[in-house]
């Protein structure tokens, strides 16, 4: 802040030099109101007595100067510039009776108010900092005696949680305790041997299910026994040892030893 104040104590034209302008980055101000406040202070009068018109013109000239140097200006500053340009026009052009817009005087009063309020808050901040501050001027107990809190934990758990925990972990342990169940699968070769043995020398048409009755009763063997012996029966047909017959779709599959095979 000290730096910008110094710069402002110079005359405006000197700012036109590129090097100077680069240092007068508008970012050095805390926003357009701050910039305006600095300018108003240069009028060296009570904020309520400043010439708002002169202030507006000064601000607009400054923004123009900065823009000529192609320095990026934050939108806040441009919004203020637009508002001040409007204020200027309102102050200079007589107001019509049917004009609902705020008058130039009202706008000027608003600007003065906002500047005064910002300055007041700035003063308040420095008055706060100039108070006797804790840790700088006033001190708390250097060796506080902390209150030692003995905590007694009251653990919460109920029987249901206990039993669920027990059952869950016992069950987790189960798979490791007995061997994996081995699925019995009929290999094609086995199926063929079983089928050949069952059919024997029978020339009667007998259904496959009947041959396999004893195996199909076992649920875990049913599918594999059917599938493998059906495949095996096709193999036997191909070899000319067995004949197959089915009267309709999904009807029992009948089979017998091929006639004349023995002959």
């Amino acid at each position: 802040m000290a730096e910008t104040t110094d710069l402002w104590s110079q005359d405006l034209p000197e700012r036109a030099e590129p090097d100077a302008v680069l240092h007068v980055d508008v970012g050095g101000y805390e926003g357009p109101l701050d910039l305006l406040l600095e300018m108003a202070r240069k009028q060296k009068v009570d904020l309520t007595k400043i010439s708002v018109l002169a202030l507006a013109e000064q601000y607009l000239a400054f923004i123009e100067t900065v823009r000529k140097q192609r320095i990026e200006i934050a939108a806040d500053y441009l919004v203020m510039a637009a508002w001040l340009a409007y204020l200027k026009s309102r102050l200079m052009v007589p107001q019509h009776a049917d004009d609902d817009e705020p008058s130039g005087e009202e706008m000027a009063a608003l600007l003065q108010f906002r500047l005064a309020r910002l300055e007041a808050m700035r003063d308040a901040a420095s008055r706060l900092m100039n108070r006797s501050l804790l840790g700088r001027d006033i001190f708390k107990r250097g060796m506080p005696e902390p209150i030692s809190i003995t905590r007694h934990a009251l653990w919460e758990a109920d029987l249901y949680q206990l039993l669920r925990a027990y059952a869950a972990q016992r069950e987790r342990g189960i798979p490791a305790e007995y061997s994996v169940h081995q699925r019995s699968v009929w290999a094609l070769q086995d199926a063929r041997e079983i089928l050949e043995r069952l059919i024997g020398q029978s020339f009667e048409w007998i259904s496959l299910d009947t041959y396999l009755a004893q195996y199909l009763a076992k649920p875990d063997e049913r599918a594999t026994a059917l599938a493998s012996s059906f495949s095996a029966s096709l193999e036997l047909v191909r070899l000319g040892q067995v004949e197959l017959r089915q009267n309709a779709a999904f009807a029992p599959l009948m089979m017998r030893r091929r006639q004349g095979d023995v002959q």
Partner: protein
Amino acid sequence: MSAYEEFGEQPEIEARNLRIMEALLFASEEPVDLEAMRPYLSDGADLDALIDALQRQYAGRGVTLVQRGSKWAFRTAEDLNFLLRREQTDTRPLSRAALETLAIIAYHQPSTRAEIEEVRGVSISKGTLDVLMEAGWVRMRGRRRTPGRPVTYGTTDAFLDHFGLEALSDLPGLEDLKGAGLLSSRVPSSFQVPLPFAGDLTDEEDPLDPDDLGDPESDDESND
């Protein structure tokens, strides 16, 4: 001890209450709420009378009993500041933006982010309110009952403690600023000047939403 004599009927009980209060306040670095001491005192102890008596006993000493909002603390006497003054090396000085924001919140509270920005004429950078809340001087108070329900900010008891204020009404120059109409958001003429409001919530504030404390900025910004 003579200091305890003023409690006529039960001087011993009151003397004990005073000793306990003194010990509790002395042991703590931070201000202690009066009510928090009640469990340690005799039944029906008059807290206000006790704290008043204790404060008088310490008046004029090197350590004094001071009020900080609803709390009390022993602090070194203010007039010894030049003797005891320490350069603060551990704390970074606040930026100008943070200082001004703090002043605006202190004098205008409850204030929304938009209101702070209106006074300063510039938007608040993201870190500014964070810094003040991290320092423990500013807190989110509630939400303004206006469209967008912006979060309102106020100061804390730690703010009072740090700046040596008994209450917000002690803020320097408060009456003058009020009189000049500079604590308003409108141009003075037909307005009521609000006092900084330290209480729970004004009529125009709602309590904070449960998730407000997670990310103060995001909520507020969505309302911008």
